[in-house]
């Protein structure tokens, strides 16, 4: 009966758990089902989900029944193009089966037939997207900006989306004050000059769906002011039906200075990451070039320099541009690195040939469209084809309005190239020396060190070594990237909690338990081995760092008297302060050695303030606190041990 009751209770628990799990499953999957947006385009519709979703199949249903039925086979997509013919103002229902549930979207097709799209672009910067309503409407007006006395490439584009001979006629009218500097060369076009305006007449036939009439021309406005340019386009179908499209562009012509005030470069940073996030821990405007001897050393030890493929940027710079105007503006942003004294680009800074197509001036240029009243961040690559001579250079950024030739603003920033850092060299050599010496001493004295250890001690040391790995290495491995992404260079405040505070607390408590030379060495080796086996890390930098760390920590405990006096060490307040100072100095040395090893072996050039911050927070503050915390922690352990 007793057994029966236990089984009964167990069954009830199992059942309730099952119900709960099922309810959670159902509710969570319902809650996760996301919405989707439908945008109609001439040849169907685009379906956009807020995040990628695994789609099983989908259907589009209209008044006439199922129009689209597609099996997607669980492919993960965020956007999906559905090909079908839709009719204006009709309702369509889109049903999507996903791994998260079923999404049903109802949407009415827009007005208009989308027979043709008409785009008048002054300046011409890009083809309008097919989901842009501006190209299908009968009438459209837009505004743009130009610089006086500067050529502006413009275009009229007519695209048909149905089959059948479509006669396209019309004209583009340009105020007489504006010069037409390059005429369209399309057959069937002619220019008529009037007193008040210049007209470009055109006539063409488009006969198949997606066929496009593209009529480029260039203009130049000699004076500031506001002008209206207009295109009237008539489409005549084979059955005689006609459609008329009207497009107007209000062109504001301003002086170069005025545009420079409207578009401002408010911030420039280098180096930054690929997404433009500033790498503040590295020295600003500085590139660190690894000394040749260290390249060879690194190559000998199998260390790959961080950037070896010159087809990829050495680093990036970010530019924050602000548009204080009232309209969007498209720009070309050009960046080049020159010698300090002359406008010549050193060969080392030239982008790879495959990226430039062998162009004459090797500046890097990107395009950007700045919305009004907003700041836009641009990320531009900085290439290094070979190692430049260390010294000072100029980084010149030019801003050109799209469609124009000359820049309207130019900015200059210094660029420092550094190579050999005496301090980094010194620390690296010291690290090499200490590691080699420590290894030699350890190998020679191994028998004596082990012979002096009881098995129980070794077990305790191993346990502590493993604990330091668990509380220090694992959290950093799991959360390190996230914390770095969120807090940037200040992530050491968080990571130091694990790597310094908890670590030293455990180490101090261990040494209090077993105050002998070798305790720290064994605990560090256990941690190092665990880290190497679990996450990999048997590399030169790790070996040097660990070797130096062992020597510094053993020395600190010895000098402070803990391992020198053994059981005779008095854990008084004064001794503790002395110990905290010793350990802090040792940790500062280890931290600085680690940073310099990275500088020498991986070309990561850290800013001085970042190095100081590391020393103050990690080494002095956290290590000192950890010394006291370690004693408190070991008070309890001592009692248990005793």
């Amino acid at each position, binding site marked *: 009966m007793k057994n029966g009751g236990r*089984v*009964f209770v167990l069954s009830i628990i199992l*059942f309730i758990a099952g119900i709960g799990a099922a309810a959670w499953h159902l509710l969570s999957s319902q809650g996760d089902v996301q919405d989707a947006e439908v945008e109609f385009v001439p040849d169907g519709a685009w379906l956009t989900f807020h995040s990628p979703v695994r789609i099983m199949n989908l259907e589009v249903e209209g008044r006439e029944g199922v129009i689209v039925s597609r099996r997607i086979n669980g492919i993960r997509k965020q956007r999906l193009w559905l090909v079908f013919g839709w009719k204006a103002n009709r309702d369509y229902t889109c049903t999507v089966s996903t791994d998260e549930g079923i999404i049903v979207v109802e949407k009415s097709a827009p007005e208009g037939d989308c027979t043709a799209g008409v785009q008048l672009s002054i300046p011409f910067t890009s083809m309008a997207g097919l989901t842009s309503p501006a190209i299908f409407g009968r009438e459209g007006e837009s505004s743009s900006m130009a610089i006086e006395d500067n050529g502006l490439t413009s275009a009229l584009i007519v695209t048909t989306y149905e089959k059948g001979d479509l006669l396209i006629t019309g004209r583009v009218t340009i105020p007489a004050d504006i010069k037409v500097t390059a005429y369209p060369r399309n057959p069937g076009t002619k220019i008529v000059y009037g007193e008040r305006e210049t007209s470009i007449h055109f006539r063409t036939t488009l006969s*198949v769906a997606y066929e496009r009439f593209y009529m480029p021309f260039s203009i130049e406005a000699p004076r500031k002011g506001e002008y209206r340019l207009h295109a009237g386009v008539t489409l005549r179908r084979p059955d005689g039906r006609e459609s008329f499209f009207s497009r107007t562009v209000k062109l504001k012509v301003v002086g170069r200075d005025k545009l420079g005030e409207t578009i401002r470069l408010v911030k420039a940073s280098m180096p930054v990451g690929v997404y433009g996030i500033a790498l503040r821990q590295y020295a600003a405007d500085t590139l660190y070039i690894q000394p040749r001897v260290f390249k060879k050393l690194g190559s000998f030890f199998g260390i790959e320099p961080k950037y070896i493929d010159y087809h990829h940027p050495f680093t990036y710079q970010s530019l924050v541009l602000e548009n204080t105007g009232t309209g969007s503006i498209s720009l070309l942003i*050009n960046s080049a690195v020159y010698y300090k004294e002359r406008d010549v680009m050193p060969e080392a800074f030239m982008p790879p040939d495959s990226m430039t197509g*062998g162009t004459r001036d090797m*500046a890097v240029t990107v*395009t950007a469209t700045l919305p009004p009243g907003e700041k836009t961040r641009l990320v531009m690559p900085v290439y290094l084809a070979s190692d430049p001579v260390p010294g000072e250079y100029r980084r010149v950024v030019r801003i050109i309005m*799209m469609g124009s030739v000359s820049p309207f603003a130019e900015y200059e920033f210094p660029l420092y190239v550094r190579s050999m850092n005496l301090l980094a060299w010194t620390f690296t050599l010291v690290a090499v020396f200490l590691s080699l010496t420590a290894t030699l001493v350890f190998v020679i004295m191994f028998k004596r060190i082990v012979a002096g250890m009881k098995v129980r001690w070794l077990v305790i040391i191993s346990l502590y070594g493993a604990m330091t790995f668990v509380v220090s290495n694992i959290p950093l491995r799991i959360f390190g990237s996230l914390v770095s992404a969120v807090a940037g260079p200040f992530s050491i405040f968080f990571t130091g909690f694990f790597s310094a505070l908890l670590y030293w607390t455990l180490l101090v408590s261990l040494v209090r338990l077993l105050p002998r030379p070798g305790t720290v060495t064994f605990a560090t080796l256990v941690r190092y081995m665990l880290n190497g086996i679990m996450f990999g890390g048997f590399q030169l930098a790790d070996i040097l760092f660990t070797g130096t760390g062992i020597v510094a920590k053993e020395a600190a405990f010895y000098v402070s008297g803990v391992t020198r006096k053994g059981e005779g060490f008095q854990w008084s307040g004064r001794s503790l302060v002395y110990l905290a100072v010793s350990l802090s100095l040792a940790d500062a040395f280890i931290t600085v050695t680690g940073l310099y090893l990275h500088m020498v072996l991986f070309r990561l050039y850290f800013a001085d303030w970042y190095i100081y911050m590391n020393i103050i927070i990690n080494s002095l503050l956290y290590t000192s606190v950890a010394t006291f915390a370690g004693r408190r922690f070991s008070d309890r352990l001592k009692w248990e041990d005793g």
Partner: protein
Amino acid sequence: MRGGLFLLIFLFAAFMSGCSGNEPGPRVYFVRDGLAVELPGIETVTIRSGEKTVFKWQKGGGDEAAPLFSDKNLLIPIHWRPGESYDVEVRNKDARFTNRVMAPLKPSPMLIQRVKLENVIPFSIDQGTAPDTFVRFSGDNKYLAIGSFHGYLRVVEVRTGKVVYSRKIAEGMVKRIGWGEMDERRVLYVGEQSPDGYIYCLDAMTGREIWKYRLADDIETSRPERENDRYAIYKFPGVYQLKVLPGGDVVIVGTHGWDSEGKRLYRCLIYRFDGRTGRIKWRWPADRTLPYGLTWFDISDDGRKLLLLTSTWRPPEQTDSVYENGALYCLNGDTGAVLWEYKVPPLRPYYKRATAWQGVALSGDGRYAAIGLNDGRGMFFDTGRAVKVKGKRFLQNSPLWVKELGTPVLIGDIPVSSPVSYAEAGKEEVYFVLPGTSIPSGAVKGKVRKPAPHPAANQLYAVGFDGRLRWKWKSYGSMQGIYLSGDNRWLFTVNALAGMAGARRGGRTSPFGITLFDT
């Protein structure tokens, strides 16, 4: 009491499995050649339209017209029209299902099998270039050969999805594959891109080697100039095009282009091998290698005419005394002799040379030829129209028409063009694919990211032999390659790249897939 516990556990498991979201019924959807029905353990299918039974299928009934894949995917060959309704009754051993389905305007693709390849990572995290993979069905569509970037060759049985074998064949990548037949055995011709650049003839069902030929003995091998060059593989000798002729011979182009001390070097050759023995029947040029790039050729169905275009991105480090760079050559497929040539004039002022990628096409009968050039021009030739010109070594031909499809237009002061990267010739029309936008080399000051797409970019043109545009299609992304079915009716192109880098950066994927056209 213990029995009660097991019962409860069973009920709980059953309850949970009911919540797993699996759809119990069959999936029925319309595909190009009929109706696809998916149901594990499918046994019978009956399709009715109104009162009339349109099709009836029973497992093991010997109906070869309705292939069953992996015991669950059935393709029923019926002709359907948009808007028509069908009642579909499907049975497996457990249940019977009835569905009413209405035919849509356009068919859905049918997933027949899914084959897992090696794990691949993008070439470049910044650019998202996908590693190459090559697939080729056997003539009877029973088997699929897959060559991978990591050098693996797999042969898969289409109906079951079973991998017949998987074998690492190349210290590089498997670049091209062709199916052939020898003594009523299936054979595979496999071309690799590797330091050796082998072409192999293998027993298709076992992977056993029958013969092989090392291209590097002719077109040289090379070493990457830099360590860790991600693109080093493309600088090794490789088989860039491979065609198996009806008689069993194999024609390939061996391509080797690499950088050495700041120069771009090319060594290329066309070979015709005896498919049975691997003996070279002819090679072009016969007595030396060509110092220009050859990335593609096309050959008529009977193998009697072969078309190629010589081109280099940069000035070649040496020139040939007989053959020109940027020239179209039509060869006699039986002998390798030049039938005619056409020196393609560069499109000034933006281009100094005419170059092409895979834009070389010959109609099946060898009568017409089309080329798509990187400067955006498409050209069409009558291969029988070559004439003797005084002072010229070979007969000279010229295009019947030239289309300026993607030639440069100015966006700002930056000229952009849309290369005609792929071409194909059908029965009455030629197809040109313009996958993207480029900036003419040397035309611009500064390294410029393309400011905007060329108005003709991402488009597919179908142009009649008479030069009139028959139809056109605009993709929403880039396009890769163009493939025409044997009967010239079906045409497909691959849309865009999978955006692998984007996917790695946080799950964003760009549109990708294929688009099939009924020409």
